[in-house]
């Protein structure tokens, strides 16, 4: 006779250490989501009074909150757009230089040099923009207005200090350059070598190889890199606050002393002296900025992630 012993299924012993540790990591991870939610929630709560503020509460002659924030939002988008127009072609060029033109041994060092630009604090960029770049560009602006003043963008009268929206955009372009370059470089390096070798073997020149194999492969990467750069340019504060002499209005001319300012710069300049509803109004403009950058970043990440799914690149 054999006795059949009923056996429990084997289970790993539950250790206290395991449970504590895994719970801690889950809590930490969830905390990040909570912080992001808290940022939105607290900003929203604190900015509620701004939406019902009376015209007397606003600096300048805005009738309500939306009239107050519109020129600022315009300036934010306008300066960021100009910065990207300058930065994207340059960044693609630099990324191509590092990934496909520079000697292999030098490439990593060159990439590190460009990354150094990202390490410079924004307040130093502000000092540099106003102390070096603006005086340097002013004579150039004068001749630009002289020769091309008939184009509305370059309409006069020219600013005497060089502290214009174009100077700001150049500083912003320098600041977002390393971000866009770094991502483009990674993407270009991930082009399948077989594609490149195939087009070279068919007799393509180096540029034709890049145009046929590298750029099409990296297109979505370039788009998302630009959007991340856009997010950075939208939120940049100190460089704009220091370089620009602001007058919140919707104006497209690039070289005059009348310049639109950005949301972030407006907050930085006015926050130390603000009180009462003024604080709430500035917080509300911050909320608008938060929503804009959040949307831009989310779209960029979705594009990157979608691409990741089928190419193995990130």
């Amino acid at each position: 006779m054999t006795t059949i012993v009923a056996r429990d299924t084997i289970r790993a012993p539950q250790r206290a250490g395991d449970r504590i540790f895994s719970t801690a990591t889950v809590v930490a991870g969830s905390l990040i989501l909570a912080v992001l939610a808290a940022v939105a929630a607290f900003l929203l709560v604190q900015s509620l009074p701004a939406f019902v503020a009376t015209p007397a509460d606003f600096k300048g002659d805005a009738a309500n909150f939306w009239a107050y924030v519109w020129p600022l939002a315009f300036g934010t988008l306008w300066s960021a757009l100009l910065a990207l127009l300058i930065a994207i072609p340059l960044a693609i060029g630099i990324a191509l230089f590092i990934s496909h033109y520079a000697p292999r041994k030098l490439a990593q060092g060159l990439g590190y040099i460009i990354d150094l630009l990202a390490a410079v604090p924004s307040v130093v960029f502000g000092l540099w923009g106003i102390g070096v770049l603006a005086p340097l560009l002013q004579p150039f602006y004068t001749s630009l207005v002289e020769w091309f003043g008939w184009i509305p963008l370059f309409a006069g009268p020219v600013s005497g200090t060089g502290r214009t929206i174009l100077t700001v955009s150049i500083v912003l372009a320098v600041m977002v350059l390393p971000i866009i370059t770094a991502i483009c470089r990674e993407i270009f390096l991930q082009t399948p070598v077989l594609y490149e070798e195939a087009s070279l073997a068919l007799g393509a020149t180096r540029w034709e190889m890049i145009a046929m194999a590298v750029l099409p492969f990296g297109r979505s990467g370039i788009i998302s890199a630009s959007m991340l750069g856009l997010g950075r340019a939208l939120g940049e504060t100190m460089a704009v606050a220091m370089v620009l002499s602001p007058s919140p209005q919707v104006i497209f001319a690039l070289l005059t002393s009348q310049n639109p300012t950005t949301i972030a710069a407006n907050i930085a300049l006015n926050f130390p002296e603000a009180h009462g509803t003024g604080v709430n109004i500035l917080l509300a403009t911050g909320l608008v900025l938060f929503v804009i950058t959040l949307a831009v970043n989310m779209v960029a990440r979705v594009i990157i992630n979608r691409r990741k799914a089928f190419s193995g690149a990130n």
Partner: protein
Amino acid sequence: MSTTTVAVPLTNSLTAGKLPRHSGPVVLLVSWLVTAAVFLIVQLSGASTSFNVAGTLFFGTVLYCIAIYLLSFFVEGVRKAKDRLVTALVTAAFVIALLPLISLVATTVISGLPAFLTPTFFTSSQRNVVGPGGGALHAVIGTLLITGLATLISVPIGLLSAIYLTEYGRGRLARAITFFVDVMTGIPSIVAGLFAFALFSLLFNDPGIRFGFGGAIALSVLMIPVVVRSSEEMLKLVPNELREAAYALGVPKWLTILKVVLPTSLAGIVTGIMISISRVIGETAPLLIISGFTASMNYDLFNERMMTLPVFVYTQYANQGTDTQAYLDRAWAGALTLILIVMVLNALARLIAKLFSPKLGR
């Protein structure tokens, strides 16, 4: 009858002429010389007072692009010409990007050194200082305290989250965290400052609240996603064989992570943390909003305004007194200190990564 054969010169449509080997650099040199000559004539004619070096280099390079394109077009054909043009443009893009970096570092060093070398710069604060003199000790202390506290807050949270994402995370929560960490890296720094302000002014019911702890919270919001991202990358590099070997020996999962996974990736994690510190140590906007500015020493993170280096640079520049030069000098000296700190942190991080990273494979 005999036919005479006439030798037809052989033409091969597949081959084309080729420019001599070093024609690129030579053409570049020639175009610089030509533009230099033009500018020299302009100067000698009295139209301008000094020799325009920047103009020479710029227009010389433009001339080079045109010359090499045309030369190559007539000798080598349109495809090769385009290739040479793009090579010139791409190289120019890289050089253009170097110019601001060189100019910025040079200006900061030259303008910053006079005040930086003043004996009082690192030994006194700005209290009761009008005009020249004084120092940035209060700002250096504030920066160290606030950044230190931000690091203390961010590193455990960031590291644990990274461990969750690599070791435990499955499913929707992990995907949401990964996505929103990426999104959070793009939060404007000023919004982080506004968040800290909104939070603490509600908590303490003080509409004008300014203190160092709030600054540390704001910096943590900016720092956590960077720590998570870099630590996650490093933890992913740890080979699975190491984990499996530990499990096979009966080591619990949490001990495996603590004793096997973390030590293996420690160098990379430390590097990431140092880079993230160098990212937030230069943040101005959030500290301007929640930590405020002062001219006096303050060692208490939970009380009163606290000065930090970036804000010091900004206020010295923004509120220039009657002796403008003294304030500007101090601003540049502060900027020089900041850049030095950031560069040292970056260099140390690279060094650690190079010296201590585990040799994977082979």
